[in-house]
């Protein structure tokens, strides 16, 4: 009952997550990205602040999940917004501004990882165990909301950079498979396969976590 209420409450909050600021999102939602870009190109630099507010959390979350370090992720996010602003004239507007921005985020995060010569630790799972989905569902439902979110995020963090990007963008429910394919440079069928594998890997990882050991919970 409590979990259901919390889920409902946070689901309601999600509609305002994109801007990060509920008040701002209400007043600015009428202006779409392309109108804002038009204004920026016309010299209204401050209009870019709205775009930053609108996408900062998604850009930061993507960078954080790939980089696994808050300082690095914030540096990447800042760099992404500055570079995007400088390259705004090159944005043709055929695709969504967010697609373009997320692609920059993905590439910048990979660049930063390469520059720092830091290989993220991810689980390479050749043979994945059978996922007991009903057991996972039962366990997740009995957990406190915060613990549930923490476990899911931990599982996502163990995926590979490409998988993290695909899962995060896809489940933000803002972009289609075709758009994700364009962002990652993969084919649509490849994205679908990777999405399927990532989901399975994620729940296999979740299933193997100590918190999912019933004895420990009891």
């Amino acid at each position, binding site marked *: 009952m409590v979990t259901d209420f919390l*889920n409902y409450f*946070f*689901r309601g*909050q*999600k509609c305002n*997550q994109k801007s*990060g600021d509920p008040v701002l999102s209400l007043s600015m939602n009428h202006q779409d990205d392309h109108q804002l870009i038009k204004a920026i190109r016309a010299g209204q*630099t*401050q209009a*870019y*602040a709205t775009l*930053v*507010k609108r996408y*900062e*959390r*998604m850009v*930061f*979350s993507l960078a*954080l999940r790939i980089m696994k370090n808050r300082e690095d*992720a*914030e540096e990447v*996010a*800042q760099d992404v*917004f*500055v570079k995007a*602003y*400088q390259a705004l004239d090159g944005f043709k507007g055929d695709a969504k501004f967010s697609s373009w921005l997320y692609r920059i985020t993905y590439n910048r995060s990979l660049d930063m990882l390469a520059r720092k010569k830091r290989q993220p630790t991810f689980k390479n799972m050749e043979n994945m165990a*059978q*996922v007991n*989905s*009903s057991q*996972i*569902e039962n366990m*997740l439902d009995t957990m406190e909301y915060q613990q*549930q*979110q923490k476990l*899911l*995020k931990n599982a*996502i963090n163990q995926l590979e950079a490409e998988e993290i990007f695909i*899962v995060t963008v896809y*489940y*933000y*429910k803002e972009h289609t498979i075709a758009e994700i394919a364009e962002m990652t440079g993969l084919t649509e069928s490849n994205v679908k396969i990777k999405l*399927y594998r990532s*989901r*399975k890997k*994620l*729940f296999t990882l979740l299933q193997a976590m100590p918190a999912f050991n019933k004895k420990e919970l009891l």
Partner: protein
Amino acid sequence: MKEEEKIEILADKYLTNLPLDRLSFDFSAKVMTEITASEINKARFSYKPLISKPVWATFFAIMGAVFVYFLISGQSSFQAPDFSWFPKQLHSFTLPLANFKLPVISGTVISSILIFSFMALIEISVIKRLFDRRTTQ
């Protein structure tokens, strides 16, 4: 139901609700400060060519026309044009032009000027790009 479908339903249920991470409260202010600083920097050090693109285009069009003229006519030097076809009333105006003689320029010199101009144009664009990259970093 297949395992694949069950996992998909499970993912839809739990991953769609996953909240995004929060960053420092002054993040957007920091970004805008950096952008404003880069704008000021850009305005201060922005590259403005001494010769504009239309002027370059006109210059090359004239050069090209002269080159093509020599190529077609087979002449190795410039000669004053024949104004005899002009109406007689206008001869007084064309007379000074008929007496005007340009220095003789060989085809080799013209070719080398053309090649040099072309190379200079390439170099200017390369230097501009390099300059832009330095100022934006």
